[in-house]
């Protein structure tokens, strides 16, 4: 199913992928890939329901953010619509000590880390550039230049090894998120080289959402992305990126391999960006409606809902309650986004350098003096 031997799922791309929950909500007990690895999940009923809760919540928050952008309250928004399973599954596979290096779209992963979902909104509203403490949240700053964070993750993972925090079940692991477009970046390929050479405890998690803004996957690669890993000397696994169970199972296994000292893994989460690249994009210019429709049938949330219903793990009361709780969170988020104050202009001079700079101090003083000169005037 991974590594080119699967016939699982009529919806699988050529070469197959690891899928534990079909689009119709059928559970596949376990999947064994060509290299002999068996993937499965062992969730309690409550855990299944909790996964559903997370998927619905991150989608609802995302919808709220899209609305806020449309209403002029955010400068831009990068929607995760369609990629909830890839993000929630892999995010929940992280252990508390693990470190994540996101792009700018990993709002779902952020949520699973237990972080207040408002954290990245300063960036999208334009009141700051992110501004959080990577180490405190075990979640690095959003990185906008495509692929650059994969090297940061690799270096961080090298540091984990140097600190002696690998080789045990309670060791640390690192996950780097990136997209299909990023796989063309030299820096991402350098990260693969380094991670391999230094046996870095990390997982490269590629959400292949089929498009790099307008460019389809065929413009980035001749072979399936997960197969790139073989050339760098570590395993590559493709998963059904719309299957939260596969995302969890394969990421958890890869992270545990990493923390146990077995080096990196590349996971290609085969998914689809249901929305635009960002709120500034118009996908109708480069993809057809029928393609989007076909992916709607593979929706990550409806398949888990179908499973929960068929297995009688949840009923309408539960689904309604989840929707209500997500809505409440979204409205609270909206309220707090609207209340975000604009920064004081002079604060733009803050944090250019840890040790400051006399030149900058002088510029700041001039800035203050210049603006003070208008006080009391009509200007």
């Amino acid at each position: 199913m991974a590594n080119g031997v699967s016939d699982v799922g009529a919806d699988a791309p050529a070469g197959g992928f690891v899928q534990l929950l079909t689009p119709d909500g059928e559970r596949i007990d376990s999947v064994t890939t060509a290299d002999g690895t068996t993937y499965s999940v062992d969730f309690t009923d409550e855990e299944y329901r909790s996964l559903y809760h997370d998927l619905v919540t991150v989608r609802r928050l995302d919808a709220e953010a899209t609305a806020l952008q449309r209403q002029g309250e955010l400068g831009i928004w990068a929607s995760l619509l369609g990629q909830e399973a890839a993000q929630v599954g892999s995010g929940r596979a992280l252990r508390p000590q693990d470190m994540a290096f996101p792009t700018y779209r990993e709002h779902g992963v952020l949520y699973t880390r237990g972080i207040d979902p408002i954290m990245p909104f300063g960036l999208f509203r334009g009141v700051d550039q992110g501004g959080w403490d990577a180490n405190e949240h075990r979640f690095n700053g959003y990185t906008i230049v495509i692929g650059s964070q994969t090297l940061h993750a690799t270096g961080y993972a090298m540091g984990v090894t140097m600190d002696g925090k690998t080789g045990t079940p309670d060791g640390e692991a690192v996950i780097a998120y990136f997209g299909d477009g990023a796989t063309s970046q030299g820096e991402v390929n350098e990260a693969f080289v380094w991670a391999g050479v230094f046996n870095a405890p990390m997982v490269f998690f590629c959400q292949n959402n089929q498009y790099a803004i307008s460019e389809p996957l065929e413009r980035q690669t001749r072979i399936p992305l997960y197969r790139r890993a073989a050339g760098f000397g570590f395993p590559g696994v493709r998963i059904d990126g719309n299957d939260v169970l596969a995302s969890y199972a394969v990421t958890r296994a890869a992270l545990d391999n990493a923390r146990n000292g077995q080096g990196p893994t590349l996971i290609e989460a085969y998914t689809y960006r249901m929305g635009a690249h960002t709120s500034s994009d118009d996908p109708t210019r480069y993809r057809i409606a029928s393609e989007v429709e076909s992916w709607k049938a593979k929706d990550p949330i409806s398949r888990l809902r179908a499973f929960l219903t068929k297995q009688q793990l949840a009923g309408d009361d539960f689904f309604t309650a989840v929707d209500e709780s997500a809505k409440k969170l979204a409205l609270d988020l909206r309220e707090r986004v609207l209340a975000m104050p604009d920064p004081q202009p002079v604060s733009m001079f803050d944090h250019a350098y840890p040790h400051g700079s006399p030149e900058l101090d002088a510029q700041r003083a001039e800035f203050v003096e210049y603006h003070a000169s208008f006080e009391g005037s009509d200007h």
Partner: protein
Amino acid sequence: MAETLTLGKALNHGLRRSLEENDKVVIMGEDVGKLGGVFRITDGLQKDFGEDRVIDTPLAEAGIVGTAVGLAIRGYRPVCEIQFDGFVFPAYNQIVAQVAKMFYRSKGNVRLPIVIRIPFGGGIGAVEHHSESPEAYFAHTPGLKVVTCSNPSDAYTMIQQAITSDDPVVFFEPKRRYWEKGEVELGADLSGADPLHAARVAREGADATLIAYGPMVRTALDAATAAAEDGRHLEVIDLRSLSPVDYETIYASVRKTGRAIVVHEAPGNIGLGAELAARISEQCFYSLEAPVLRVTGYDIPYPAARVEEEYLPDLDRVLDAVDRSFGW
């Protein structure tokens, strides 16, 4: 204890002391381990500190700096070696878009105490990409600090100060001066040294101010010695820090002498000299007896080795500029 050391060896001692004093300091780069670097600046360090402290990296400059960012987030203090000036550009994205901006982006939550060592400048008869002076690209970038040393004593102290600093520092090394010798106080307390970003008056004089840095400080000092024979007493300022620049030291000198000449190897167009000339004009206008002049490389790609002596500012070109300043 004072020892006579080459500039290269002084850097080696400075790096060694940094490795000794803080086990979070790691050196990383191409050939820095067994070989000791192509200029032997890291000679013997891997042997004494191990392969985890002095890391031979894959041949990829973006990788060197990009993984240094991750190590720094993890709490390490990486010292990256870029083998030659002309090879820094694959790492340019990481330096300018990540290293320079992460402290700002994170509102001060993430510090990147990274030092990026780059041997720079010409005069060694090398092929293309081995003789460049790219300092202005980095000095232009907010969030980076940029320094360069001109003598063994500064090399020893400044590399340690750069490693101790929480600011990301691009550390340019005057490669053609690697073999020049000078007295170095090994083990001296750094608190007694000039601050990393202070300029220094390398020679006092009352008639004109020469402002130079890195490899050109020696050239400027030689020019001052020659000018003294003609009765002209030139003050020489070793800039040391290219970002931020210690302007007060410059202004004090120019207000005294009334004449300023900036010397650097990099092309003149939009170079450090242009900024210095602008600032001096703004701040010392009534003291100036002549416009600020520049003696620089020409605005061409670095030329072939057989003609580089004609490209590089030398004693005669500096003295010619001094004459022009006095002839104003």
